[in-house]
């Protein structure tokens, strides 16, 4: 059977604009639901506006106010602190866990993976409610401390100005470690076994092996993990909203919570938008830096 001769592509298909035409529907949806709200938020941030009724144009006034706003500055500091719990600690622990799981012939590896990854699958509000019970003055954590004779350490964790933020951070640590470990495990899985065999022949121990082979090989995964977890840290909202509402005082407030609080409780939509814009820029900047560093080392 004679194969049908392929016709020459029409002028329309050959046109350089054509690919963009195919992209157009998706772009319109993206623009309508993401770019437009983003630009509107940026516009709102230039107004003094309660969310209804007339508005007053104040230029960069909302941003200038943020510079001396105790609550906002505290929120940014807290978000940066949360990066330690959401990103740095999970990275360290995740690396160790992944290296162990990769090296040892652990039986039921799949089960461990599922268990450690589990927190990622649960809705954050559920996670927050569960941890709220754990941290309560007569909750599980204090019961555990008392049971092992450490009554002196018991406290209302979420009501203690010193411990409230670390308490929220530990939930983030618990959440993110599984994700980081899974990413790293995947990366480690790609390392050819003969590299390790060669290293062992040269007399390298497990620690030497880890630093000489494993770590350099998973740089890309580390960068990805850092980008993902840092975004999660800076965007934290559900956890704070459910567990502390930013309290005690301003001890656990974060920028996302400030956006919500200003827009819906204080009805300062302009100021809320300014916080949102600053947060967006902050997320972008930090991640550009992380990605750059990651790429350089590769």
């Amino acid at each position, binding site marked *: 059977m004679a194969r049908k001769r392929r016709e020459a592509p029409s*002028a329309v298909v*050959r*046109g*350089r*604009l*054509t690919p*963009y035409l195919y992209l157009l529907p998706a772009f319109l949806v993206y*623009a309508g639901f993401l*770019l*437009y709200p983003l*630009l*509107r938020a*940026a*516009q*709102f941030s230039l*107004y003094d*506006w*309660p*969310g*209804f*009724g*007339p*508005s007053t*144009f104040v230029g960069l006034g909302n941003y200038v106010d943020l510079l001396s706003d105790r609550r906002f500055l505290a929120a940014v500091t807290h978000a940066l602190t949360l990066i330690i719990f959401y990103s740095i600690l999970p990275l360290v622990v995740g690396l160790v866990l992944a290296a162990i799981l990769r090296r040892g012939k652990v039986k039921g590896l799949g089960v461990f993976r599922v268990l450690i990854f589990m927190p990622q699958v649960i809705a954050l509000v559920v996670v927050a409610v569960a941890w*709220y019970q754990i*941290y*309560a*003055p*007569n909750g599980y954590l204090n019961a555990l401390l008392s049971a092992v004779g450490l009554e002196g350490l*018991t*406290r*209302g*964790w*979420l*009501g*203690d*100005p010193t411990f*409230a933020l670390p308490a929220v951070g530990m939930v983030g640590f618990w959440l993110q470690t599984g994700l980081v470990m899974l990413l790293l495990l995947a990366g480690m899985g790609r390392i050819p076994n003969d590299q390790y065999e060669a290293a062992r022949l040269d007399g390298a121990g497990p620690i030497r092996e880890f630093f000489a082979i494993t770590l350099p090989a998973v740089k890309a995964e580390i960068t990805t993990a850092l980008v993902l977890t840092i975004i999660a840290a800076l965007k934290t909202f559900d956890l704070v909203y459910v567990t*502390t*509402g*930013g*309290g*005690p*005082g*301003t*001890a656990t407030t974060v920028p996302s919570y400030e956006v919500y*609080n200003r827009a*819906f*409780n*204080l*009805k*300062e*939509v302009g100021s809320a938008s300014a916080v949102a814009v600053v947060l967006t820029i902050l997320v972008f900047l930090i991640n550009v830096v992380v990605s750059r560093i990651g790429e350089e080392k590769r």
Partner: protein
Amino acid sequence: MSFRPFTRRSFVLGAAGVAGAGVLSACAPGENAPTQTQKPGGTSPSAAASKDPSQLGDITLVVWDQEVRGSQNDALVALNKAFQEKYPNIKIDRKSQSFDDLKAQASLALSGNDVPDVMQVNNARADMGQFVKAGQLTDLSPFAATYGWEDRFPTSVLSKVRYSADAKTFGEGNLYGLPQTGEIVGIFYSQKKLDALGVKAPTTWDEYFAALDAALAKGEQPMVLGNVDKWPALHVFGPLQAKYVAPDEIVKLGMGNAGASWTDEPNKAAMKQFADWGSKKYFGGSPNGTDYDAAWNDFTKGTGVFLPGGSWLGTDMEAVMGEDLHFIAPPPAVDGKLATTGGTGIPFAIPAKAKQVEAAAAYIDFITTSDAMKLIAENGGFPVLDTASLAPEKGVQKEIFEAFDKVSQEGTLLPYLDYATPSFSDTAGQGLQEVLGAQRTPDEVLADFEADYKEFTG
């Protein structure tokens, strides 16, 4: 035909240009509002207010409320049924949702064109005050004259729903809503605990303080407070403030009207006393880490001697504690009269753009008559009127009804402190947590309160 070559750069620039032009040409947020013909303060219906609802023809009345809790819901269901029986031409389309949900939707709903005819609107500055300022609520004064609401309600109750037309003054001026239920913050206690301590129910602040000390000396937690949500501390500080500060000063501060100050000596004394309670563990180890509902649950199980809190806790706690539970209004204020935080349930208001204003007013009248109050009480609710005569025969509800009646008739129902300014619930909630946990000093926190109050009152 062929398209002109289209570079990636020009596409991006073009898109950016279109987007940029969009921003420039987009109208300012909320710009539509000033073009409305209404004057601030909402529309004032004409004298036609007296029209008989049965003459309005077949209409549907859209009602948005937040009475989702058992007794309140039962009462409103019964009232709606009775209303529709009386006026068969009016059909009620009721949408009920939680307080938080309704509050979150209120500003969007009221600024739209498709508004309900009757809507419960929180009477704080942050809600009703803002809506009055934006001209989104109907002034009910003409209806008050027609239906005689000013004779029906005590002045102190109506003052909680009055604003000047520009919303600068809270407590006087036009009428923007009518409440159905009452609320009072007082002190719950366990009779068994008092007997064990050998003290009587306090009638003065000195006796109350002595009872607290006696509890602490015996290793009991004197008071119970779950303040992780920030606002519960307002219900402890509010009544305590009246021990030191003259009630009319508190009313000014609480309603965000000019002429008072948070940083005077009486307020400093009150805040210092509150801070002492925190640092000396009168509320146990961690009030700021304790959940509100967990706190009163603990109280019913034997934690603490006193629970400063709102009347709304009575039913649930009585179910567990029975006759052991009692309620008193806080001891008399600095001027010797009773004064405590309290007021009204969420009032029913009529949006400025409501289509059935006449029927809406008739409905609000219907659900606040003496018969309606009786129905609310029968369903286990707490009516704002006739409380003494409708009080149950015994139990903690009787004590709550009587305390409310006494304070609202003879004393002062102090406004909730978060009524004061659009941001005061945030400022006060945060500040009281900080004082309680000794993160900041009483003077620092009062300076924050003063700054918020002064910025608003100007």
